[in-house]
């Protein structure tokens, strides 16, 4: 109805869109314009009474809301019985990992969504294998180190090679690039690496073996495991290891839905706003999976404190806490002496604008009821 749209429009400035959408979806079919108006007026009223009050110390409330259920979370990384899923860091360790702002997370993972027709299962096995990082080791069935001849012989798994669509030429090219002073011969399923100059040192030949094993041949780096999974009507590839940049370049990948759990990678490739959302999603996922109930607003606030400077900083003494304006607030957290010494060199001035330093000095804290600055004459 056109008239309804007008009414909604009228309230757009007063009520967040989310709530208007909520009203729309809950509206019964028959509703008169007058009733709608009444509803919207009431909703607006309700919204304005539900607003947060100035001075509310939202930070500490959020910290409590996340910290308190922390004791109820499990420590174990575990995968649910019966479901063939990969190991995932969950529970408290995962939350700590996210909030620390660690660059290298324990179990990086991706969920790769596909475009049609691949999402319907076309070539799914081939596609997923092609993403996986393949080293020479993955292709080999057997390695023979020939000490007398001073060479290393790899027996290649031809079936696998075919599946991954690796050409002989490509294989040789990669190997010769990595072994400059060696001759590389290929004979059916055998690849032989031999140094051009004979070295007297026996351990050299083993070094060749070890180096060759780790040589990257095809696929995407850092993706160590792939697992195509059916997820409501479509196929999704779940990977262990993450490389967002390369995966998004693939033409069968749906880049708008593909996600990784590596927040730093998201920051680098998609920017800080995406990283903020990723933090929110990841933390929320953990809390939800533990069957706990924490409002999303608290997680948002944590994510925002981590991200407002334009890059991710962890909730640690090197991150968020180190940037507090107050010397005493920093000192009360960790390494107090260092903070005081450094402050003394610069002649830092503590304006006592936050909470702890005022607690230390027995003064009212500038949040909540301590906020109003009012001078009254007592006479």
């Amino acid at each position, binding site marked *: 109805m056109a008239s309804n749209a007008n009414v909604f429009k009228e309230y757009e400035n007063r009520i967040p869109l989310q709530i208007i959408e909520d009203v729309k979806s809950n509206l019964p079919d028959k509703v008169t314009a007058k009733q709608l108006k009444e509803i919207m007026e009431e909703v607006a009223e309700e919204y304005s009474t539900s607003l947060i009050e*100035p001075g509310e110390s939202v930070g500490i409330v959020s910290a409590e809301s996340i910290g308190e259920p922390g*004791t109820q979370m499990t420590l174990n990384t575990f995968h649910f019985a019966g479901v063939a899923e990969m190991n995932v860091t969950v529970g*408290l360790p995962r939350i700590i990992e996210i909030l620390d702002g660690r660059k290298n997370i324990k179990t990086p993972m991706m969920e790769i969504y596909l475009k049609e027709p691949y999402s319907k299962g076309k070539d799914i096995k081939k596609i997923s294998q092609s993403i996986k990082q393949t080293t020479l080791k993955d292709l080999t069935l057997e390695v023979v180190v020939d000490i007398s001849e001073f060479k290393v012989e790899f027996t290649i798994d031809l079936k696998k090679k075919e599946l991954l669509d690796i050409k002989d030429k490509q294989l040789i090219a990669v190997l010769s690039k990595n072994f400059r002073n060696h001759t590389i011969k290929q004979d059916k399923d055998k690849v032989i690496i031999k140094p051009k100059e004979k070295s007297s040192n026996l351990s050299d030949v083993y070094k060749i073996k070890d180096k060759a094993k780790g040589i990257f041949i095809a696929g995407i780096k850092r993706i160590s495991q792939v697992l195509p999974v059916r997820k409501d009507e479509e196929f999704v590839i779940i990977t262990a290891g993450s490389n967002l940049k390369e995966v998004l370049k693939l033409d069968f990948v749906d880049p708008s839905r593909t996600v990784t759990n590596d927040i730093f990678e998201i920051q680098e490739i998609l920017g800080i706003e995406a990283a903020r959302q990723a933090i929110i999603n990841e933390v929320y996922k953990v809390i939800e999976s533990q069957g706990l109930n924490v409002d999303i607003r608290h997680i948002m606030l944590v994510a925002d404190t981590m991200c407002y400077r334009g890059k991710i900083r962890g909730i640690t003494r090197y991150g968020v806490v180190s940037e507090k304006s107050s010397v005493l607030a920093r000192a009360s957290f960790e390494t*107090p002496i260092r903070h005081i010494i450094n402050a003394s060199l*610069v002649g830092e001035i503590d304006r006592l604008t936050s909470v702890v330093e005022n607690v230390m000095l027995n003064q009212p804290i500038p949040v909540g009821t301590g906020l109003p600055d009012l001078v009254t004459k007592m006479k």
Partner: protein
Amino acid sequence: MEVDYVVKKIDALKFGVLSPKMIKKMASVKIVTPELYDKEGYPVDGGLMDTRLGVIDPGLKCKTCGSKLKECTGHFGYIELARPVIHIKFKKVILDLLRCTCRSCGRILVPDTELQKNLTKLNKIGKLLGPKAKRRKVKELIVQLKTISKCPHCNEKLQKIRLEKPTTYFEEDKRVSPIEIRTRLEKITDEDAVLFGLNPEVVRPEWLVLTLLPIPPVTMRPSITLESGERSEDDLTHKLGDVVRINQRLFENINAGAPEIIIEDLWDLLQYHITTFFDNNVAQLPPARHRSGQPLKTLTERIKSKEGRIRHNLAGKRTNFSSRTVISPDSMIALDEVGVPHVVAMKLTVPERVNDWNFEYLKEFVKTGPKKYPGANYIVRPDGKKKKITEETTEQLLEELEPGYIVERHLMDGDIAIFNRQPSLHRMSMMCHKTKVLPYLTFRLNPAVCAPYNADFDGDEMNLHIPQTEEARAEAEILMEVQTQLISPRYGLGIIACNMDAISGNYLLTRKLVLTREEAILLLGSVGVDDFSDLPNKQKIDGKEVFSALIPKDFSFIGRTRDGAKVIIEKGKLKEGYMDSANLGSGSGLLIRNLHKKYGPKETLVILGRIFRLGIKTLVNNGFTTVLSDTDLSEVDRNKINDTLKKAENRVYELISVYEAGELDAFPGRSVEETLELKILETLNKARNEAGRIVSQALNEDTHTFIMSKSGAKGNIINLAQMAACVGQQALRGKRIERGYNKRTISFFEKNDLGPAARGFVRHGFRQGLSPNEFFFMAMTGRDSLMDTALRTPKSGYLYRRLANAMQDLKVEYDYTVRNASKKIIQFSYGEDGVDVSKSEGGKINVRRIIERITGA
């Protein structure tokens, strides 16, 4: 009474380094002797306990300010060091300064032209990342310029300087004495010092090398007199004694013209003592110790860590007017009350100021005295002097009492108190209650407030604080009272609600019971209702109607029970459905949330209290227990469960034989062994769930045990199934139990047995009893989960501390933005829509209710 309140407020604190001049200026004594007391036991003049430094003995007067003990905060002294000494905490800065400046002209090792170029960049770095980053940048700059060989200003050849830890500096291989260092630092210009992130207004580089040492006042290092009359000095005094002694020796030796080696040795010793005076935990130095061998606690150790000054005494403080004892439940007191034992009430007091109107009233308390209740313990004269009321003084004090005095009377019903249980993880861990003085020795609280405190009655203790000023009481009442905390700010639903018996009681009442009119009236009366006009005028009264009597007449509500049945309350009458934890319980409690929205906190508290008592009284009248026979199963059901388990076990053996034949297909990305494990787990879990399903169908719905789980009071179907049928697989680290002996878990089994029983599947139920091996497996997982808890608590505690520390100064400003202490915007609107979670319903605005009300749907 006219009082001029002078409100003093500290506006800012400035940090800096003391200059020698300042040290001298603020000192009241020059310390010259390591002796502390003379023969008579009086402090020696010029000693470390000099009375000009302040007093710690009662009776003595401070020679500097003339005040007595506790009035005088103490005064600093100083000693003149015979030779300068490096300040250990500045050693790195000194090294940087020495390395980056010329040894002869003292200028920074960057040509002026380069300096000009980089100046703005440096300042920017200093501003954004702090002085440390700036210093690093200067160093980088010097390395880049490759001017290391010669000074760009005076062409002096440069030499490499290194720091031999802890405090010795070497140039090439020659030692640089602190005197030399000091003269070099003196040469650095103010302009250059700024480049290193030093502020010349508060710190000159040469001040980092000590020539004078301030002596802290005795008040911060008081000595204690032991019972034997012996004096035991503070650790700091000991250390200072060492410093003074060596310093005097050094002076004497220098004056006597002793050989250089001796002087050097003494100098190093002085350096050691001063270093350990500042920090007794320097990596390369042996810590200074007492004669008993325990290390001294010097300045750094005093400040540092959890037990240090900052976290122990400044960020957290001790309090008076508090009390702690065991708690026990009492559902007959209101939710916002706390039962206080008589003994406690006679020790904790509330100050009341005497005026013309309450004069007689307060006089009564003084007359009763401290030994009878309700009396008073002290009176405070207007000049602040406190007088204890005793039998002897009562008469005299009564006469003396007049307006302006303060009477500290005993705690009485209705006084404001703050009640707390540790760990105080959220704001609901400290709530304001009204006191109710009761007999016996425990604090009493209504079991409905157990949830926010996370309290139970297996020996828990709680703390009670009595605010002493009007401001504190007002604030506690407005911000912390139980009724203001009904809705958790964590998820926007009720946290204070019914639990346990209150839920099962109401469930029984609203689902099954029919009472006679007398019974109904008796029940309602015992709950605290005295108006029975709501009850229908008939002889048999349904439980639903009894429950309805507690609901306000204009309240309507549509909700669902735990298993989805509709609950309809129309105009204060429960028409359809029954009560269970979905509507009454904590963390869901939609009924209570709606009551709160409509009638406000105060009314809700009363209604909630009544509903709670209604549940409990119903159970008291009808009896409620749990018996072994509740988990009895019929022969048929037992066989059914046995069959299910047998089948599952057979299937597992099948899987194993397939695996052993090498014909098992692995899941992608998994080994065959892992696949087998997963499949076995799946099979066994399915079987257990199936058993659970059979149990839930088979058990009599009227047994009390079943009602408990059905109503959501306590326990769930899985618990029931574990009792009646089968406990199920014990999992260790997400897998079946694998550890133990070589290739088997217990020697009872054969090697390589992968069957269910050998890997921790407990096929019996608790009712039947476990076999010994099953019991052992359960003990394994039990220990594991115990460990998990023990390891988790400190981890999550640290996470919480970090979160709280990082976010404590975020607040909503008047423009509704969220900002931190330096007024930087964190969020433009709190939570993107500015809604307070504790005012929302589960984080949302409930538009559906509004729509339903207006459209009448």
